[in-house]
């Protein structure tokens, strides 16, 4: 889901969002405080209900944050027609969000336990935490919903049109700025929800997102920058390779194997697993 948000923004804006990791962390903290403070203590919900509610709160927080950052930073810089400044601005937003969270929540890691993290599912000698199953299920549902939205709705088609050719889409009566804002909101909402799902898996601190973002970038590059199907395929591939690396080579070699694979991909197939089709009129 984290990689999907990254690739979505790149696909439409041709821009890498370095602040994406911090959107994940904001989502994780929103979910943590919603589940452990608001939903249980104010609303009196049971643990499961509180955690499920916290996922939607994180989704909303991510969307709102994306909307605010786009309106305050990305949109004004984009209007100046410079590609470098919005990119640098994403680094600035990342540092700002990280330090704001450090000031608000402090550096001592929080213990975020969802009721699903406490349950274990077993098939023979293989075991999963219910949280892992939930992560896969919610991610699959979110990916399916996003795919359906992009493929079958008018807004989705308009978004793809903006991704292919912003100017021509504008001439067809599509408001590119509105759709770019929508893209950022969707990607940020996905990041927020990913934060809620990963909160009970990660060591929750203001730096939590940083631990997943490097891998997310690798997945996006292996999958093919801007290509949703490629990103999904690469995500699964990297996960499987990591598990086999731990089992047969050693966990200390995970990064070596994944990034060797990334370099190999860049050399042999720079367009990624599934190349994004871009048509140009001559």
């Amino acid at each position, binding site marked *: 889901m984290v990689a999907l948000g990254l690739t979505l923004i790149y696909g439409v804006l041709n821009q890498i969002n370095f602040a994406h990791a911090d959107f994940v962390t904001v989502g994780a903290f929103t979910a943590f405080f919603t589940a452990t403070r608001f939903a249980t203590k104010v609303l009196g919900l049971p643990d499961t209900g509180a955690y499920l509610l916290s996922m939607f709160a994180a989704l909303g927080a991510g969307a709102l944050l994306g909307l605010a950052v786009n309106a305050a930073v990305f949109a004004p810089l984009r209007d100046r027609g410079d590609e470098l400044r919005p990119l640098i601005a994403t680094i600035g937003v990342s540092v700002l969000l990280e*330090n704001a969270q*450090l000031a608000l929540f*402090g*550096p*001592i*890691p929080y*213990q975020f*336990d969802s009721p699903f*993290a*406490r349950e*274990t599912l077993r098939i023979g*000698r*293989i*075991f*999963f*935490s219910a949280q*892992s199953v939930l992560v896969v299920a919610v991610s699959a549902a979110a990916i399916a919903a996003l795919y359906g939205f992009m493929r079958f709705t008018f807004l989705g088609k308009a978004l793809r049109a903006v991704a292919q050719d912003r100017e021509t889409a504008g001439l067809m009566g599509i408001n590119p700025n509105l759709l770019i804002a929508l893209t950022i909101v969707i990607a940020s909402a996905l990041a927020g929800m990913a934060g809620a799902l*990963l909160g009970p*898996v*990660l*060591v929750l*601190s203001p*730096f939590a997102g*940083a*631990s*997943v973002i*490097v891998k997310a970038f690798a997945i996006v590059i292996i999958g093919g920058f801007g290509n949703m199907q490629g990103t999904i395929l690469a995500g699964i591939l990297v996960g499987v390779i*990591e*598990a086999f690396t*731990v*089992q047969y080579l*050693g*966990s*200390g070699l*995970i*990064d070596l194997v994944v990034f060797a694979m990334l370099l190999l991909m860049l050399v042999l197939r720079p367009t990624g697993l599934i190349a994004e089709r871009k048509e140009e009129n001559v």
Partner: protein
Amino acid sequence: MKLALKGAILAFVCATFAVQAQEKVIRVGVLMPISGPGSYFGVMGKEGIDLALEQLKGGVNGYHLQVQYEDSACSPLQATNAVKRVLDQFRPHIVIGEECSDASLAIAPILEQAKVPQLNAGSVTMKLTESGYRYVFRIFPNAAQQSLPLAKVAYDRLGARTAVILYEKTNAGNDNADGFEKPFVAMGGKVLAKIDFGRDVNDFTAIATRIASLGRVDVLPTFALEGQQVRLAQALAQAKVVRGGGGNAVQMGSIWLPYGFDQKAGQAAEGYVRIVQFDPNEKRRIVQDFIRAFRAKYGADKVPTHINSHAYDTILLIAEAVRRGATDSESIRERFSGFKGVEVTTGRISFDPKGQNSDLSVVHFVETQKDLSWKGLDW
């Protein structure tokens, strides 16, 4: 009347200058991770140092301790920059830090060249006190001092014959892992696997699955920061490897792990055996006084960790050196070299010729109980 007023002003000005002329200062540079994933060390360390300074605000032997904090981020590069900055601008008589072994190793040669003592209270790597530095002093037990008792207890007391060593891929992790492996194997034990991981790893399911497939494992010595230890303990419990999850293996830990880990890990921590240097249950008066003062300053519900107490002790030790006549870097080094059995909250400090604290009289084992409290073990 006018003359009397002028006289009073003159007397006040003279007195002020006289006080300033007499005011003597020992400058203490503190390098701590204030940003980045290790920044909880910095927060807890600062709490301990601030408390000690507050208690010493009257000064020692006419000297005031003046502290400057610098962010070294648990990183060799940032620590190097920070120590150069503090040496240039603040001209400290002594530097406390760093917490992380890699960063501590990076600053040691710089302080050695500047002839400024480095007082370390959180790094375990052997290299820090085995590299011949004359200005390095460490109160934290080194890797051998922590891992050897773990290996002995595993083999002799727990009857362990097989082990899987889990450790972070750093100087500290490597040294602790080697420090356990060598004596354990020499005693007749077998290490089934040594599994290392980066500090960015959060999901330990695959590692736990691998351990579950290794056959009978008696002990799992683990050397990692608290956040990863929590996730590791939970994954091992879910894999039914450790006692906290209904398995047979005993997870073992070192002094790295702060008080409060058990509550964060929950039932997965049940049966966890570790060595501790600072134990809030210890009856020594200095420990109980420290806990009372800590709670009065930071909140009645707060229990200090070993990070708080180690940082607090560094200031007590500098104050003791000043009390014994130290006035500058060289005399602080000399007084430290002569320390024998100086009592602080984390034990008694006696520096050996390499600058390592050799008095481990308060280090002891504890086991996490079902209600997540500690049971002190007489090992």
